[in-house]
């Protein structure tokens, strides 16, 4: 399976309350509420760290979950959020030329 890289969409608005992110799409103002696991992935989505690294080094460290199943869930979530335009996914590292949503937090 090839690696997947994820990066937050720069036009999204985001704030994390009590470990859970609320994200508003910059494309159509749709509001999303991410659970704690999805928030960890969202915050780590810098375009340079692959999703398997994020899951291995952060999700599995935080929760007692089986790696393969967590990675599958993370990929499904990333593709769903990409469909809504609040996350970009690529099989190559993604340039950080643009400011990432939430990077400064």
């Amino acid at each position: 399976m090839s690696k997947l890289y994820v990066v937050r969409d720069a036009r999204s608005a985001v704030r994390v309350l009590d470990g859970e992110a609320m994200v508003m799409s910059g494309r159509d103002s749709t509001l999303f509420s991410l659970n704690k696991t999805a928030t960890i992935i969202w915050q780590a989505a810098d375009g340079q760290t692959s999703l398997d690294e994020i899951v291995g080094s952060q999700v599995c460290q935080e929760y007692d979950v089986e790696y393969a199943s967590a990675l599958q869930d993370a990929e499904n979530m990333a593709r769903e959020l990409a469909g809504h335009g609040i996350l970009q996914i690529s099989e190559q590292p993604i340039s950080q030329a643009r400011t990432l949503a939430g990077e400064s937090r």
Partner: protein
Amino acid sequence: MISLMEEIEAKALKLNIPLSVQIDLTYRCNEHCVHCYLDHEDHGEMTTVEITNLLDQLAEVGVFVLTLSGGEILMRKDFFEILAYARKLTFCIKLKTNAVMIREREAARIRDLGVETIQVSIYSHRPEVHDGITLVPGSLRRSVDAIRFLTSQGLKVTIANPLMLPTFQDYPGVQALANELGVEVTIDPTITPMMDGDRGVLSLGIGQKELRQVFADESLVGNVEEFCAISAPPGESELESKPCSAGHSTCYVSPYGDVYPCVQFPLPTGNVRQQPFIDIWRHSERMNEVRSIRLKDISGCSQCTHATTCTRCPGLAYMEGNMRGPSSQDCEKSFARTGVPSANLLSKKLSMAGLVQIRSIPVMSAASA
């Protein structure tokens, strides 16, 4: 079923976080609207550094929606610097502007920075009426041009159409204009007293006749019968409910750093030049007093027929003299909507009747003397 936004609001309330904050960047303005409640002189606005420092604090606290308003926001030369900084902090940003300074270049910059909504005030679709309110010839044309520039960039624009006696008959024209421009329109019959307490400007507000027309207009209220229905008396849970979000999940910061529960609630609770925002939000006695008020505490309103459907504004009530009292403008709206006078209006009528009687006695005495 509650919406996601309601869920988030409930969470913010539980965590005591202001989800939404409005900052007026300046009270200076390039229009001179006849109904405006602001003092447009600059009495020492926050500097760029003070504002960016405040934005850092708001982001840290958890503020999500940031409304930048004025005065006219583009009167500040550092407006785009502030906006860029706010976006870097990933706020969901709403702008309120008259838009007369927005041309293609500004619209493109706003798009690049990522703004959720831009609200533009339009008083009439007729230049002579709109410009008669702003006292700036050509202002309608410039505002409408700006709306076109903004929408051509894919930005979401909302027209705010305050209803006043001189413009009332034109609200259908503004609706048609909004339709032509492909933007939403909101109407608001509320006129706010001047900041110095002068209530003379309220004479521009529409009366019962006009309010009734508004509330019978399906294009504004949807199902008229449903909208105008008289509500059931408040139950126990409703009596324990909060009057509005002011001071609970929203607040307002003036260009001078003063923090208030809401833009329409001029109760000073602290100043961010003197103490951190979070200390004001959490520990200000006045903010906590506002927060403590429940429907059951509001004299007259808690027993009123309209208790559960009234749009009572605690800020307007405060400006009338009692934040635990009724807001007469909203009593008038409830009356116009249902045909049933509010408890406050009934009590005023009774006291007015008393006054007439008392005043008539000396006249009678004089005549008979």
